[in-house]
């Protein structure tokens, strides 16, 4: 083919594409119909993303403050929180054929995590030695702008009116989009049936069954539910209960100015996990 004609055709084609496509794309963006990232409507904290402490004007917004120093003073208390939660919610401990726990399919609602994994954006050169020994607890942050809720195709995960992000296990299809969306690793997938039994008919993975709370089934994602079933009865979450009167975990309505949690948040320096992501977490740490 003649080189001139070839160049002409290429140019004509490109101009046509640009001429048709660019104005419509421009119009969409100008009108604001499409955003580069569209946050889910944040009903409780309306501050700009990334500002960390989202303050809500009205309604209940449940939150939690974890005082890591109190956990350091009471060794073993963190494990008590984990065990208490997992026992209450029938969280299975999956064991492989050798009886070992494989971290890849471990289910965790609340767990211990080293500082550098919990706060990667706070890692810096010449860190305080004590940080490495502190028992940090991690759990679902019950974000005010939860990415998992946006990712869920079946609305199995949703935000309640009180700000807690919970799951309807009936609707979970196990696509694990929420696990990919959650920046905190707070979600676990049931690769195996939690109700597998040994040859004597006993449950292999759940000891000390709580018959008031269901188990899950294979192929379902699960996570902390901020003890929705206990809060409705006026009880504190199980992990908070496990800390007793040490004040290591403070739970309550952050929008109530008289609640202990509001007083603590007002008077103490706290940090959140990955605040720059704009998820507006409801879990705060005192270090």
């Amino acid at each position, binding site marked *: 083919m003649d080189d001139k004609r070839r160049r002409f055709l290429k140019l004509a084609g490109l101009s046509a594409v640009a001429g048709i496509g660019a104005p419509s794309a421009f119009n969409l963006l100008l009108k604001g119909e499409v955003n580069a990232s569209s946050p889910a409507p944040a009903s409780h904290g309306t501050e700009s993303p990334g500002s960390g402490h989202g303050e809500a004007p009205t309604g209940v917004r449940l939150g939690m403050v974890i005082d890591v120093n109190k956990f350091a003073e009471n060794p073993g208390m963190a494990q008590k929180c984990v065990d208490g939660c997992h026992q209450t919610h029938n969280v299975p401990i999956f064991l492989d054929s050798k009886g070992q726990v494989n971290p890849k399919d471990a289910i965790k609602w609340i767990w211990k995590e080293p500082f550098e994994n919990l706060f990667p954006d706070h890692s810096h050169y010449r860190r305080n030695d004590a940080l490495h020994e502190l028992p940090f607890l991690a759990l679902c942050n019950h974000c005010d702008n939860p990415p998992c809720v946006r990712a869920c195709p079946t609305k199995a995960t949703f935000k309640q009116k009180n700000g807690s992000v919970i799951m309807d296990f009936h609707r979970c299809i196990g696509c694990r989009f929420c696990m990919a969306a959650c920046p905190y690793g707070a979600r676990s997938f049931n690769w195996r049936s939690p109700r597998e039994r040994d040859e004597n008919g006993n449950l292999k993975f759940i000891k000390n069954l709580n018959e008031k709370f269901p188990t*899950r089934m294979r192929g379902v994602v699960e996570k902390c539910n901020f003890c*929705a079933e206990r809060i409705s009865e006026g009880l504190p979450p199980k992990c908070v209960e496990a800390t007793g009167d040490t004040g290591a975990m403070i739970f309550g309505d952050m929008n109530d100015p008289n609640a202990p949690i509001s007083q603590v948040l007002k008077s103490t320096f706290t940090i959140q996990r990955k605040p720059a992501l704009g998820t507006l977490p409801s879990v705060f740490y005192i270090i």
Partner: protein
Amino acid sequence: MYDKGKIIPGIIVFVCLLIFPILYNSGSAGVLPNPEKPKDQKECVKDKQYMRTTHMQLINDWRDEVLREGNREKVVVQGKKYDKSLMNGCMTCHTNKKKFCDECHVYASVYPYCWDCHFVPKETI
């Protein structure tokens, strides 16, 4: 018609075989399901007819109210409080799943997956 002598008796035998089960069972409805109701209870949250036809809908609505709206207010019928829950509500009175749930579900060939996660009362799980 060729082979009349074979075809016509053949058709008659075939039709007889076909309608035999219908004739054999005619007049009897088979064994009807008879779910055993709790002996020490007289009232349920709704009347018998409603529960028979719509219990699955009611349980679904309860779940959505409890989970989505966070409304765990107990259902009060004639002064008695019921949890809006299958495991902690229904099954506290209807303690025998085999004689209550399964009786009809098996008859109607309905196999809901409630028990994959929820517990059957007094089940050694």
